[in-house]
């Protein structure tokens, strides 16, 4: 065993000396390889973390949302529907939700105005609880600076800021303005008794489907959105985003694949000569193959480790700065959020085998042919 290890170490030494002879070329190879791993691993870590964040926070979302559809579009719903829904067995609570959007023509941002469901969270008349992003885009200098909203030229509505929502919750509240029901109705000129949609609380989550069936029979025109569907929407969304980011990196990956295959598989005349000499001085075919295996393994494992660690730092310590513009799109408010650092072992293993294995394989195949040939023939 000891003999075997010593032999392998000597082979590794030899390989490294051979790599060092083409230092610039090999260092740049590792760097490009690491860059490719970095992009893919960043996309993977980032979307996994976002998916986790969405699933964990949206656990608190209402079990069921009932929307009214008029002419195929979402419309206001009558408050009396909540009573109908509350009558279904298994429903603990059904109440109207009031929320809407406000386009701020001052800075082009969209805010979400909402009346909180929990009465304990409802601010007093003329007051608002605002999310982390609003003071940022409105440049509200001090903590108690009031918020002015203008619905049309000449109009100005003042809200005193009762509280700023902690930036810890920015991912769900960056653009949120929580106000009381009376303020909401007067701000949007909304009649009494109508709501944006109805939030339904259901005691036993396993009954949700049955309750949706029953409610569907009572309200044939309504649209029902369960919490599961909400979470599924996000799961899909982030998987898609991850796919897009990987696809954007696709051209680079392809270019690298060609480069690596060319480098690894197409033996230069010099390398073939080297192998010929090794064989001529008594190296075994297995030695030559082991030596090349070491080359492939050192390059690809090194690049994998470099790329993965850099991706972790990028996503969790530098807040995925390179991806923010892709996610941001045309938004004016973008939440300043932290992600829960996490590493998915299965994903990491998949990435390892997708990067290391093909490279090692690509180095090995052409060597086989050369190593099997007669040294005299190869050197010539």
């Amino acid at each position: 065993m000891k003999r075997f290890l010593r032999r392998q170490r000597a082979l590794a030494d030899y390989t490294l000396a051979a790599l060092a002879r083409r230092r610039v070329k090999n260092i740049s190879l590792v760097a490009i390889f690491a860059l490719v791993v970095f992009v893919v691993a960043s996309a993977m870590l980032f979307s996994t973390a976002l998916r986790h964040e969405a699933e964990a926070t949206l656990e608190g979302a209402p079990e069921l949302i009932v929307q009214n559809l008029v002419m195929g579009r979402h419309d206001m719903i009558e408050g009396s529907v909540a009573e109908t829904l509350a009558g279904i067995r298994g429903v603990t609570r059904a109440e109207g939700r009031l929320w809407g959007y406000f386009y701020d023509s001052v800075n082009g941002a969209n805010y979400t105005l909402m009346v909180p469901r929990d009465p304990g969270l409802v601010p007093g008349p003329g007051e608002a609880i605002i999310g982390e992003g609003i003071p940022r885009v409105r440049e509200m200098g001090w903590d108690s600076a009031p918020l002015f909203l203008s619905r049309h030229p000449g109009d100005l509505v003042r809200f005193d800021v009762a509280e700023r929502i902690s930036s810890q919750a920015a991912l769900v509240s960056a653009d949120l303005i929580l106000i009381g029901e009376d303020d909401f109705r007067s701000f949007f000129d909304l009649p009494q008794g109508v709501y944006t949609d109805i939030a339904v609380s259901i005691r036993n989550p396993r009954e949700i489907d049955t309750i949706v069936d029953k409610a569907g029979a009572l309200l044939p025109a309504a649209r029902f959105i369960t919490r599961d569907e909400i979470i599924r929407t996000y799961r899909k969304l982030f998987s898609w985003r991850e796919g897009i980011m990987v696809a954007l990196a696709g051209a680079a990956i392809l270019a690298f694949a060609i480069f690596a295959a060319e480098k690894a598989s197409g033996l230069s005349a010099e390398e073939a000569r080297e192998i010929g000499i090794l064989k001529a001085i008594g190296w075994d075919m297995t030695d030559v193959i082991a030596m090349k295996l070491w080359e492939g393994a050192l390059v690809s494992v090194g690049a994998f480790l470099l790329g993965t660690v850099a991706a972790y730092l990028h996503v969790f310590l530098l807040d995925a700065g390179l991806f923010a513009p892709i996610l941001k799109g045309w938004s004016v408010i973008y939440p300043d959020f932290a992600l829960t650092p996490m590493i998915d072992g299965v994903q990491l293993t998949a990435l390892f085998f997708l990067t290391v294995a093909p490279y090692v394989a690509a180095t090995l195949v052409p060597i086989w042919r050369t190593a099997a040939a007669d040294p005299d023939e190869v050197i010539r």
Partner: protein
Amino acid sequence: MRPRVYRRSDMAFGLIALGLAALALAGGHAALSRGASQARLAETAALVRAAGLTDLALFTEARYTRNPAMADLHTAFQDNPMAFEHFPSGTFAPRPASFGAGALGFDPAEVAR
């Protein structure tokens, strides 16, 4: 005693070990920060519950991006976040030329200025 010989493999294995250690450190960091994150996630979930929220404030650019779960059945972005238009014909419809000029003021004259 034999003199210590410099071997390239020492450095290479050292670097690989360093990389593995960094990866393990990242794993440790992820495990350690779970506690603090749990508190933050619980706080966020409590806000979601209290306010009755359904969506993340990640994409605030349009209705159907701010609340993809609540959007109309065939709105763009609902199924595919990069599909700004859901149907091929939407490609030909331009976005509005003007979003209106915005200004903030206490009276119409100020706004007009």
